[in-house]
């Protein structure tokens, strides 16, 4: 299968996502410049981390206007799997592909460290290879990852089982102490109604090799490979 890694001018985790897809997973991967409008026939799209346009305004606020985003939106509406990591998640929020917004971390500081996540839902293309309740150790690196949504949006998200990842402690319990940024309901990642668009603040592409301290993030990429393989094998 083929991953498209979208490159905004200030993306800085684009090479990391590409490396994970191409060199760790052994899949095909291409970079797609934000001014382009073709995804080069990719089967899945990754919006990588970084500071898309400097993000001096609001994270991802300008990136949603990049030409490539029309194509990504159409791809998502057609059911194609889209993964937004960190800044990519923020862009998905700004583009309206996922609900809610990001606030600055509650202590107003950037945090780079390993955290624990509980996999809440496994019926998305990015989690189907993980057992429900699995605890993943994956790094975060953000200053604005404090997820927020209005109470009715939040109720809807929870009721429709669209919270995909929650910050938790080592034993898998979502506690206030294990929440690194103040995100409401310890939310680390969510999906859309169609469940094919997933955004999360932690960086699974940084946790794909034991040499880097954890390979727990690999399951997200393996999942989408399986999801697409299953789809392809349908009559």
């Amino acid at each position, binding site marked *: 299968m083929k991953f498209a890694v979208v490159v905004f*001018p*200030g*993306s*800085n*985790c684009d*090479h*990391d996502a590409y*490396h*994970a897809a191409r060199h760790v997973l052994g899949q095909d991967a291409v970079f797609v410049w934000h001014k382009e409008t073709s995804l080069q026939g990719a089967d899945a799209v990754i919006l990588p*981390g*970084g*500071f898309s*346009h*400097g*993000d*001096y305004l609001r994270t991802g606020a300008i990136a949603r206007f990049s030409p490539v985003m029309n194509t990504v939106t159409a791809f998502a509406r057609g059911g194609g799997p889209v993964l937004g990591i960190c800044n990519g998640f923020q862009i998905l929020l700004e583009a309206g592909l996922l609900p809610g917004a990001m606030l600055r971390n509650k202590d107003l*500081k*950037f*945090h*780079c*460290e390993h955290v624990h996540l509980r996999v809440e839902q496994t019926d998305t293309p990015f989690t189907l290879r993980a057992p429900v309740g699995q605890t993943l150790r994956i*790094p975060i*690196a953000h*200053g604005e990852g404090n997820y927020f949504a209005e109470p009715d949006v939040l109720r809807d998200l929870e009721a429709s089982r669209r919270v995909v990842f929650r910050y938790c402690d080592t034993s898998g319990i979502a506690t206030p102490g294990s929440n690194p940024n103040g995100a409401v309901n310890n939310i680390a990642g969510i999906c859309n109604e169609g469940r094919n668009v997933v955004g999360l603040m932690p*960086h699974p*592409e*940084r946790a*794909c*090799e034991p*040499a*880097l*301290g954890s390979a727990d993030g690999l399951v997200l990429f393996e999942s989408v490979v399986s999801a697409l393989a299953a789809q392809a094998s349908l009559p």
Partner: protein
Amino acid sequence: MSAHDSAVLERHGLKPDEYDRIVQALGREPSLTELGIFSVMWSEHCSYKSSRIHLKKLPTRGSRVLQGPGENAGAVDIGGGLAAVFKIESHNHPSFIEPYQGAATGVGGIIRDIFTMGARPIALLNSLRFGPMDGATGARTRRTVEGVVAGIAGYGNSIGIPTIGGEIAFEDCYAGNPLVNVMCLGIARSDALVKGNAGGVGNPVYYVGARTGRDGIHGATMASAEFDDRSAEKRPAVQVGDPFMEKLLLEACLELMKGDALIGVQDMGAAGLTCATSEMGARGGCGIEIDVQHVPQRETGMTPYEIMLSESQERMLLVVKRGREAEVEAIFQKWDLHAARIGSVTETGLLQVKSRGETVAEIPNAALVDEAPVYDRPTARPRYLDEVHRLDLESLTPVSPQQALGSLLSSPTIASKRWVYRQYDHMVRTNTLVLAGMGAGVVRVKGTPRALAMSTDGNGRYCYLDPRRGAMLALAEAARNVACAGAVPIGATNCLNFGNPEKPDIMWGLVEAIEGLSDACRALDIPITGGNVSLYNETDGRAIFPTPVIGVVGLIEDASCALGRSFRAAGSEIVLLGASVGRGDAEPKGRAASAGLGGSEYLKILHGLIAGDVPHLDLEAERALLALLAKATAGRLLLSAHDCSDGGLAVTLAESAFDSGGIGCLVDLPAEGAVGEWDVLADLFGEAGGRVVVSVAAGSLGPLMDLAAECGVPARRVGRTGGDRIAVTVGGRAAIDWKLADAERLWSEALAQYFARPAA
């Protein structure tokens, strides 16, 4: 009679005799614009006029050196056709005036130096010095720390280069003059290093990047003067950073460098357009003619003087091949950047500046660069040295070892720096093999089996007591740190932070430090490939301690051999490599304890004393230790390795247990000679160099001991990992017995607690 009065000269930081030299070089009186150009190029910051004759003593050649001092950065061969390009630079003065922007633009500047060489930056480190976190200046220091750390984070995180390591120390002398030294390392193809040369008469000169504003005018001159209570007025001389702009510039320049349209490139850092045009011309043995009306400007009504002296950030000067303009402009357009043709290369050897066709400056490049003043300033050994070497321990009351360990672990210099490094993205680019805080920074080099380890070290307290040996110890410690990570040191960069060189006692310290560093580099076979000198680090006439900071880069042939500082398994053997314990071996009995504790963090924290002889250093032994560590790590004998430095053996053992997942240790240090109270303290907290604590699987103990014997390094098994306590005895006498979790909590929370307090 001069065309400029003495007030004008003083404002430009020029001495009367320097003005006479300018008149001589030009054969006439300079215009105001020309005077401005001379003043920045002849400033201490750009010309190294006080240090240049001494810097020549540093060894800069070696079998791996591809580029020594003189270009934007140094480069060493790391095999596989690749080069590591690296340099360290200071941004002390701006960081004192405006901590966030001062530190941020320091990061931006050193990154530009690296990608200017054609290298993709892959790692950042920093060495920071601040005043005490408590006391009268504590509130201001805490604000400075917050601003500097946030500035480094803001720039590095955004541009996507991991900040993988560094060090921070706190000392009274930095209260009015903090130090911010930043190092960057990048990877380039060895055969594609880019130089800062102009060349080819008629070739176009391009200006790319951010527009020029009035910020930073005379920044280089500011960095060449002392501070006083009017320093805040100099805030307009601090620039404002835009990491997004730099990211665009970085990507566009690297894209351009893949082709062959480029002749040379230099960033516009200190002294901006002036420095870039004159240095590129001087290096290429040619002239450059520009018209400032073509320079993209952020403000209206800027004069040629202001445009030439602006230090606006994120700007580069390029010389490209004639006929390739369209290709070059297309690349910058892709990244939405300005590429303005502002002039061309000439055969005249002159820097010719025009404004709307009218000549406003015409100066031989050589006069600005090669013929800048060089001073052999007088030196005098400071008198305070006679006093501070005296150390009479008998007049002090010894503190119990456990209490002393607690005080040290919670002192800001030794406490965990997690509060700092968690604000730095230290993992982006997915190369970081040893995470921040776990020892030397280690990044793998993708596409090869190799990794690079790097460490920045320096100890102002040692250098205050003995600048020569202090500088040696700094190099030795940095080399030892990368060796602990499994690397062979292959190159170094230095940042020499000192006071006013016009004062003979300061100048004496600078010369001592450079000579000490030279000797140590030669003994350990580590060439210096570049660096930076920061002088005039004084506020209200009070100088900082002499503070040479050394960054060492080491090569790990097999990245999977990289090591961190923490114990990995219970039941492994703990071995002390190097000359036994903290007491100075060469000292006569009886004076041993005081010799061992001289200059130590223990004396400073527990007794408020900065006194005694600085720690013992044996460069031959150090060299043998480095060789042993390289062999032992390559042979996968070690599970962890941690250098013994600030706080001595006791702190090294404790830190080896920290972040290990709760693996304690049971250690008995050999007692050599007497075991009086002071002897025990010296053994535990003395900071003699050349020592490393390693842990090894039981089965590797024999092979390690054999290898140590072969390398001529003393090695002694001193204990075993395991349990949930840090238990240390000295010659069987109980010294420390502490629950690991309690000690670790103290150490990990101490620094953050200073910032949990309400702002004063």
